């Protein structure tokens, strides 16, 4: 709830959860950043009838999990390792988005700081 209030009161230093990053993703990384790798191909996802919202960077694990369930059904608990693997991937994805949000917030504050300093110098 605090985020909603902060976004309403200080929109210039609070990133919206619905907008992509407005900054260069490589800014501030002198050694560069590893690209995220998509393992499942589009044909695989279409063939597995994977819902569109699940076609993220964990899609290959989702397919694996669904395949396992289909093979062992009704003994679905046998797919616990696959499920754990898939949910861990989703957790990591969530952490990454949180980090991206924090990076966005700090960059916005930096931008605001620079703007204020320039304003001061201009006077």
């Amino acid at each position, binding site marked *: 709830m605090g985020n909603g209030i902060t976004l*309403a009161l200080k929109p210039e230093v609070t990133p919206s959860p619905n907008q*992509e990053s407005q900054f260069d993703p490589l800014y501030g990384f002198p050694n560069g950043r*590893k*690209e995220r790798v998509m393992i499942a191909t589009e044909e695989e996802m279409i063939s597995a009838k994977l819902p569109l919202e699940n076609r993220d960077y964990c899609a290959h694990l989702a397919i694996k999990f669904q395949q396992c369930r289909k093979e062992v059904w009704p003994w679905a608990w046998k797919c616990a390792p696959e499920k754990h693997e898939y949910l861990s991937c989703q957790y990591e994805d969530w952490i990454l988005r949180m980090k991206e949000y924090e990076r*966005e917030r700090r960059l916005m504050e930096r931008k605001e700081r620079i703007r204020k300093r320039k304003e001061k110098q201009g006077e």
Partner: protein
Amino acid sequence: MAGLVKLSKFALKISNKNSLGLVFRSASHWNKDWKPSPFPETQAEREAAAKKYGIPVEQYQPYPDDGTGNGDYPKLADISTERKDPYYPYDYPEVRRNFGDAMHVDTDLYSEDRHNNTPQRYSITFMLCCFLGLMTVSASIFIFLEDYKMFRPILPKQLPGKGKVHYTFSPVD
């Protein structure tokens, strides 16, 4: 036995009345004894009618003689069963009625599981205003807060696609 059944069926055909009516009492059908007497014109007739229905003469008032067929049946106050005092020791507490009490013409309408005409505490206008006021306030708050939704501090989900590049936070080796 078969002959009896045949006879009763035959009797049903030749008469439009229930042929077993002589043997069995019809509990569900109309009975000529339930028909009210003609509309009372003279004072003596009024007194006789009031006595018949067990009502004091000064309280007795028949329905207007407009062809509805109510005859001398008394016009009673429109008081539903639920409106009557529940703590009074009635002879029949489950229907809140005493023995010999004249029944209302629409008594089937005013039974406890049907219509209740007890006066309400607030008028219908006041109740409508309260309802609409509450709904308006709630809707206003809802619409106002549409732009100020709470959220978790994360950026939108990174979905791969053509021409899209997403990065992890680990440096390139």
